[in-house]
């Protein structure tokens, strides 16, 4: 479905499909048509839905035609040991970017831990081929430039589907461009070397998430919205290092009497200034 890694926070199975990254500045997206749907919560975060869906369809077609078949063959032909080694080497390079971003966010301790991780895996893990650091308890703590920008207060901006690379936001797309500067594909000196490395990054990532994307096909009613909503909540989770403020989602749509023409949102007549609360889920009426 999508290519490059980059969004791998504590990489989970179900959601890993949302991971990706790469260097495509979306110059033209400011002119994208606005979604014509009713002003729902979704259209607020995704004002360019119509346009995004077109890119999404393109990405899916590309995946079906090329990326997925190649990744499937790679998984079936290359032994797991070799695939793990490739993944570790690439991961070790991504970790360097994470170190930098820990420091940029002022997270001194985790930055040092990740720095130790890179040194350990580089020198005792045969240049990153093995991952002895994880066994020592220095597990990966992913940080990318999108997260750093978020920490610095840059808002997400509208949801964007980046050609080739998938779900993102305006802010994360800027982060993505910076991420790519520190990616494995940025290392080779020649263009062909860079393309080849990028290809390896893409296939290695895609192979890892073959089962995940298959599951996604089976459990989503609308794959586009499932990925969008999942991407946005995962990024929010990552921004808070896995501990976003807990909210009550509001599920009290039970049998309480309802005035026929009343709007769906429960009114709070006794609280005239309550309109400034963050626009999360509608507040539940007390039981």
């Amino acid at each position, binding site marked *: 479905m999508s290519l490059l890694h980059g969004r791998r*926070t*504590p*990489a*989970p*199975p*179900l*959601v*890993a499909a949302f991971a990706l990254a790469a260097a495509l500045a979306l110059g033209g997206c400011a002119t994208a048509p606005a979604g014509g749907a*009713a002003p*729902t*919560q*979704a259209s607020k975060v995704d004002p360019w839905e119509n346009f995004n869906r077109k890119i999404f369809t393109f990405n899916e077609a590309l995946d079906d035609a090329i990326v997925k078949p190649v990744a499937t063959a790679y998984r079936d032909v290359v032994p797991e040991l070799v695939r793990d080694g490739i993944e570790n080497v690439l991961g070790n390079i991504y970790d360097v970017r994470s170190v930098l971003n820990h420091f940029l966010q002022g997270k001194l301790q985790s930055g040092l831990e990740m720095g130790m991780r890179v040194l350990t895996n580089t020198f005792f893990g045969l240049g990153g081929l093995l991952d002895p650091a*994880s066994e020592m308890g220095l*597990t*990966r703590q992913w940080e990318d430039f999108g997260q750093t920008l978020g920490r610095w207060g840059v808002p997400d901006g509208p949801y964007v589907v980046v050609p080739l690379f998938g779900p993102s936001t305006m802010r994360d797309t800027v982060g993505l461009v910076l991420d790519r500067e520190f990616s494995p594909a940025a290392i080779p000196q020649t263009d062909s070397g860079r393309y080849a490395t990028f290809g390896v990054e893409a296939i290695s990532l895609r192979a890892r998430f073959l*089962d*995940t994307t*298959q*599951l996604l096909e*089976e*459990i*989503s*009613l*609308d794959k586009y*919205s*499932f990925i969008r*909503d*999942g991407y946005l*909540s*995962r*990024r*929010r*989770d*990552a921004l808070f290092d*896995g501990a976003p*403020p*807990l*909210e*009550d*989602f*509001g*599920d009290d*749509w*039970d*049998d*309480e009497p*309802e005035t026929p023409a009343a709007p*769906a*949102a429960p009114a709070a007549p006794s609280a005239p200034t309550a309109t400034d609360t963050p626009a999360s889920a*509608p*507040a*539940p009426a007390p039981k």
Partner: protein
Amino acid sequence: MLKKILSASSLLLALATAVPVQANTAPDALVRQISVEVIDVARADKAIQEGDTARVLALVESKVMPHVNFEVVTRSAVGPQWRGATPEQRSKLQAEFKTLLVRAYSGALAQVKDQSVEVLKTLPVPGSTQMVVQTEVRGSGEPIKLDYRLDKQAEAWKIIDVNVGGLWLVQNYRSQFATEISKGGIDGLINTLVERNKAPSKS
């Protein structure tokens, strides 16, 4: 080490809770019990380790589902339109969404091999009676966040949502449900769910 702790605690749990979970079980104890039971079975079952979907489904059905309140789960995903749904529509929605969620949760579970679960923190949700129990699934790769949202109903804690790696699974259906309802009403949503569930599982 962790395995030892886990097997020791499962032994203790087996002794302590030979009967089904009692009404006053704390939310973290409930989550711990479910996790340990699921992992113990998964570890002992060759078919599950080889990715037998039917077996994973059966495991989730027997160990996890009794502790889930599907009415709250479904109502939460459907949103305010739930009020207008007839009892028949509600029970159909509930049944179909359950099938889908069991598949989703089982599918996620099946992809994590060699796992152990550590229960971390239990946090109250501000402004509600809900609690969130944070756990971490540890396997060969990076640890995976697996949080449970529970609410106390009729004296027992029941799971009402699961967070896999940063997304609340039930909440993630909200906008998809809203779209289906705006297109074809509650019946439209039911039909879509039925169709979705008919598709054979391939993973």
